């Protein structure tokens, strides 16, 4: 009785479709004779078959003269291509089975994409039925959301097959099973095997893997986890200093990943000092007298000028500050670049909330040489690049795909991209930033002026002169789902070596965080504490997770994202350059800067420096978010081994080695001194024994210059020095 009632409701509403549709809780059988819904039935089918993928007809130019929107982002345009384009040649109304749109994928005529459907496939039957119905454009209901079951699965072992079920929920309250219309793509096809016909997935390797389910315009990530080890583990006795530890340990237990030990005070001192100030620790602390008060140390470091200098440098890199002199394009003068850097440092010094900092940058106008944040609008060459920069920095999002088509893996549409660009098009992009009433952005789809739009939100009134205030309001609202997460994720990466979302500028539903709850908590905590960067850094730094050793144990060696052990972080080029200078006692010259200027204190990314170039500094003309390689490029290694960067300074007059020799230190004392300043530890007996083969304390150090230089060279090129571990 209940089923009959449901059917009658559907018939009465005129909402029946070719595939089972039901109200929640009801079970309505498939109705093959009813109208085929172009948007909800056929477009997903084209996606599932791969027709509208970027490598096929979904490419920017289409393929073979037939262009579909990427992954069906514009169903109406696809309909026109199929039904109307070229005189309607793809549909044969007099003989539907002879239609090109049917014959091509069935390869009854030559088809570059091969055979995609057989004559008796459900897909072929749907297409044929649609043509027989007159090939109408039907869009009977709007998709509200898609739910994949399971959305997250922790398998007990590898090799088990998991059935997948996809349900689409529509705006009229109806839902239906669309598993057969859903495309499943494994992020790593070696880790997950997908059977598209049976709609099952099998995890082939231990670890956390992603499967992307795509139905219509919705993409849903499915997390499939196979434990790393066979036995359950108990981490209840591990140190839990705050919610960071709770979330990290919870995941590790699920994955059955044991944790490495905690680090000693000396290692913590080196790690946190490098992470918060970009410097090697001073030799003041005598850790043999009393245990280190880690909380006090973190607070001292966060309050230091060194922290301000280092994090101003990091923000400067994030904002891609560098001077550009080009008479034909936007110019960022050296003074404007330095001015912006100084302004950022000043915000850190004042403890300005990141929300307010962002607001002041986004709404800035004025002379970039006198008003620091105005420089922001000279850094991108045009309004579209400015949109990319703003979304990358403040939303951790790569919106540039939406310049040409709706983002295939995210929610961003062309309207979002060009609506945001319309705001920045209203600015003069010269030394003095001011409103430009005639500035406009042409929407490539319409050929008309794009209206300003809040991403994912409303259009602003046509008469809006400057939409940046509304943008800043939306962005810095506590409800904004991107702003706080984007920055806390960067802070997390800064200390932990890997973002919870990685890459850090690629937030999207199909690239979920390794620890989504932790990211939520960090963002909420950040907002609750006035968007205070120091608060979040302190929270992370004082967690037990941060203080975990970088030495893996047997069963967590392969962990590269769950923080069962600390990740060894190569020192950033600027930090490494300063560390080399601090150890050798001689600084390189950076451009025209005052001699002795530290690399992290450089206020302009374009300052000339061979040292920084050799060490691989980021070219700020494009994003600097890509993780540096764990092993530097060959050229860098060769420079360190053979070039002047080290060799020209190791034995130089006025340097640390020469000074120690001149003050009559023995070779052993020199070794001990260099170990402490470079590695922040004393040499181990076996290390001393090793060096004793070449160095003799009975002879003056001045007579042993060559082996001493070799020792320093070896120290400076070892991984323990160039990595924060």
């Amino acid at each position, binding site marked *: 009785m209940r089923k009959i009632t449901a059917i009658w409701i559907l018939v009465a509403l005129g909402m029946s479709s070719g595939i089972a549709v039901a109200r929640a809780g009801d079970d309505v059988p498939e109705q093959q004779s009813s109208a085929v819904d172009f948007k909800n039935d056929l477009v997903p089918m084209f996606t599932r078959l791969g027709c509208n993928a970027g490598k096929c007809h979904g490419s920017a130019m289409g393929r073979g*003269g037939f262009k579909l929107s990427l992954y069906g982002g514009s169903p109406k345009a696809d309909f026109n291509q199929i039904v109307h384009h*070229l005189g*309607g040649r*793809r549909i044969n109304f007099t003989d539907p089975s002879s239609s090109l749109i049917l014959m091509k994928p069935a390869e009854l005529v030559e088809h570059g994409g091969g055979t995609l459907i057989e004559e008796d496939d459900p897909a072929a039957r749907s297409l044929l039925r649609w043509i027989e119905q007159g090939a109408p454009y039907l869009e009977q209901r709007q998709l509200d959301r898609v739910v994949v079951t399971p959305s997250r699965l922790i398998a007990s072992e590898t090799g088990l097959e998991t059935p997948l079920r996809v349900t689409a929920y529509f705006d009229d309250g109806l839902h239906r099973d669309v598993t057969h219309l859903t495309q499943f793509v494994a992020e790593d096809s070696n880790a997950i095997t997908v059977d598209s016909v049976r709609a099952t997935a099998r995890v082939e390797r231990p670890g956390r893997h992603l499967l992307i389910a795509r139905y219509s315009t919705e993409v849903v990530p499915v997390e499939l986890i196979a434990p790393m080890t066979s036995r359950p583990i108990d981490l209840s006795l591990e140190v839990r200093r705050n919610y960071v530890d709770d979330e990290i340990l919870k995941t590790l237990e699920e994955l059955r990943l044991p944790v490495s030990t905690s680090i000693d005070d000396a290692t913590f001192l080196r790690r946190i000092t490098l992470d918060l100030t970009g410097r090697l620790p001073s030799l003041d602390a005598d850790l043999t007298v009393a245990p280190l008060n880690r909380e006090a140390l973190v607070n001292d470091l966060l309050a230091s000028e060194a922290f301000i200098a280092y994090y101003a440098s990091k923000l400067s890199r994030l904002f891609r500050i560098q001077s550009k002199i080009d008479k034909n394009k936007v110019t960022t003068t050296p003074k404007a670049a330095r001015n912006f850097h100084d302004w950022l440092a000043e915000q850190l010094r004042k403890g300005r909330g990141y929300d307010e900092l962002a607001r002041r940058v986004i709404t800035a106008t004025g002379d970039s040489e006198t008003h620091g944040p105005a420089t922001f609008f000279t850094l991108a060459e045009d309004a579209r690049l400015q949109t990319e920069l703003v979304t990358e920095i403040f939303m951790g999002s790569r919106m540039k795909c939406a310049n040409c088509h709706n983002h295939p893996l995210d929610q961003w549409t062309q309207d979002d991209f060009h609506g945001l660009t319309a705001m920045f098009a209203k600015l003069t992009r010269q030394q003095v930033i001011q409103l430009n009433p005639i500035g406009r952005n042409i929407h490539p789809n319409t050929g008309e002026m794009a209206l300003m739009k809040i991403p994912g939100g409303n259009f602003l009134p046509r008469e809006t002169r400057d939409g940046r205030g509304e943008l800043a309001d939306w962005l810095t609202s506590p409800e904004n789902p991107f702003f706080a997460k984007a920055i806390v994720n960067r802070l997390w990466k800064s200390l932990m070596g890997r973002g919870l979302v990685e890459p850090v500028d690629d937030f999207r539903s199909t690239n979920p965080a390794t620890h989504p709850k932790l990211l939520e908590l960090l963002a909420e905590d950040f907002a609750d504490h006035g968007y205070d960067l120091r608060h979040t850094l302190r929270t992370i730094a004082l967690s037990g997770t941060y203080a975990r050793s970088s030495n893996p144990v047997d069963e967590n060696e392969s962990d590269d994202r769950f923080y069962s052990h600390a990740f060894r972080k190569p020192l950033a080029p600027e930090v490494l350059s300063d560390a080399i200078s601090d150890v050798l006692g001689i600084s390189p010259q950076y451009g025209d800067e005052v001699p002795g200027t530290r690399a992290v204190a450089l206020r302009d990314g374009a300052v000339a420096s061979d040292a920084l170039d050799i060490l691989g500094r980021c070219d700020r003309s494009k994003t600097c978010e890509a993780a540096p390689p764990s092993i530097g490029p060959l050229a860098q290694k060769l420079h360190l081994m053979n070039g002047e960067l080290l060799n020209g300074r190791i034995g130089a007059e006025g340097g640390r080695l020469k000074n120690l020799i001149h003050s009559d230190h023995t070779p052993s004392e020199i070794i001990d001194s260099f170990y402490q300043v470079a590695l922040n530890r004393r040499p181990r007996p076996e290390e001393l024994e090793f060096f004793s083969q070449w160095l003799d304390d009975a002879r003056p150090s001045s007579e042993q210059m060559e082996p001493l230089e070799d020792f320093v060279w070896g120290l400076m090129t070892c991984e323990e020095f160039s990595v924060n571990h």
Partner: protein
Amino acid sequence: MTHQRLPASRRLRIVLLSTWAFALTAVNSWGQSPPITDLAFSPEGTSIVACSQDGLQVFSWPALEKQRSITVSFRNLHCLAFSNDGQRLALGGGNPSENGGVEIFSWPQGKSLMSFLDHEDSVMEIAWSGDQKIVTAGRDRRLIKYDLETEERVQTYEGHSRGINAVSLLPQGAMVTAGHDASVRVWDDDSGTLLKTLSQHTQPVNAIAVCPAESALPMVATAAKDRTVRFWQPTIGRLMRYVRLESEPLDITWLNDSFLVASCVDGRLRCVDFENVQVVEIRPAIEGWAYAITVHPEDGSLAIAGSRGQIRRITLTLPTTQSND
């Protein structure tokens, strides 16, 4: 879009004089008529022929009553053209992605005289060169010239990088073509040499129309998916001016030396003043895409056809210049 009020000295009177005549081609068993892809008035002006997947159909003019159907060899028909002497009708089309060709009928008998099936995809447009030669433009990127007297293929033109949608012959021995590669190309009709490639369109070009004005340099208009109608002196490679419409023009035809009408994707016709490159009139014509428009050689009335087999007759007073105020 350029759609502004004209100066008084050039203000026009474009008046819808009569109610529209309307016809639908045959409806199939699913209640659907295929789109009409091309139209032409018969030489005597008393009927109009239309082609579609239903073949060739002849309607009376101006009543638009169906008179007869003629069966054609191809599955899809895209173009038709009467010979200059009015005694033959060429129909082009093909079986999509398989082959394309042209079939020649006697007129008014409608008897098939010959056919050629040399293209590897549908023929999209035909142009007569005198009464004995035709040039066919294909989706296979080629143009082929046939001599109907010898029934031989005499020339193949290659150069377009994608399918060709339009071909027109100019009075002085040049040929203009345009297509999916967004280019307009000028050829030496006799030698088949490509003379010029005009690249200002940014999207596929749908149609070409030669201006009837007699001048030293011929002029053509082209209509493209970029929503522009561009006016050229193709033999010297000069883009004279252009106008952007609100909707993509699918076909164009000149009303006289000064005005051109376009049938558009939104089913409307738009009249463009060439001199001022302004749209001076927009009129609804059919529902859906209007693939074809043609002007009656005698009375200047228009026939527009397209989606679902619709044909409309619209009678306009020819634009005239007013000299008041």
